[in-house]
């Protein structure tokens, strides 16, 4: 566990950089986190992050498929928004733990 400061807010993160407490999340934290990885978040990115947060806080498992059905972006678009490993990256920027699903 480590402490990091994003947008003036000090938060606890795990070894992979995921927030320990999802409630500490703000949009500015997300933007700064992504910037560290060289990614500039747009409104559409933020919309996806909010969708993931809503699902997670309801206790649902996050999957790529559910993002594809969210109406915000299709799966191809999701990969484009968060290149490489979309669900992992998006979960991280959304202040959520590393995804625990296999799909």
């Amino acid at each position: 566990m480590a402490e990091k400061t994003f947008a003036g807010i000090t938060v606890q993160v795990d070894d992979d950089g995921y927030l320990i407490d999802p409630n500490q999340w703000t949009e500015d934290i997300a933007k700064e986190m992504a910037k560290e990885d060289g990614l500039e978040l747009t409104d559409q990115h933020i919309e996806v992050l909010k969708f993931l947060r809503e699902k997670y806080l309801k206790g649902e498992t996050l999957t790529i498929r559910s993002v594809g059905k969210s109406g915000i972006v299709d799966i191809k678009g999701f990969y484009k928004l968060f290149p490489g490993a979309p669900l992992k990256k998006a979960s991280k920027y959304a202040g959520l733990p590393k995804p625990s699903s296999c799909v």
Partner: protein
Amino acid sequence: MADNRKVSIIVSKGRLEDVYAGLVMANGAVMEGIETKMFFTFFGLHALKPKFMNRLHTAVVGNPALRMPGDLPFPTLLGIIPFVEAGISAMMRKEMEKLDVPPVDEFLEMIDAGGGEIYACKLAMDMFKLKKEDLHPLVKDVLTVGEFYEISKGGEIIFI
């Protein structure tokens, strides 16, 4: 996260569990940002036929791990009764759907959307008298074994 890892997954069997093992591993690799290729051969090709792909079956005869509710062994003799195999396979597909595991065609679309590639084996196609048009449109190409090794060069190969 996006790195130089690369994997090729060969699906050689057409049973529900074998095909899904390949699809889950391939999609999982794509989700990790790993360059992913799938190669369907022999009975695995069955999973690429649009008419059958979403109705794959599991073996209910001679499958010692198949259990009934309460973890009781499933008697092989029951498996020979008409529709039992279809019923059990349908049940398995339903349980997977609950876990957000998609049907085969949608799974292929997910893999493709993430940049994964799907190929079919030429020898097996010839043997089963199949043409590329008989397979799902996302099948990128029909390859010889040599071509398969060519595209898999430098990566890991998983055989299912």
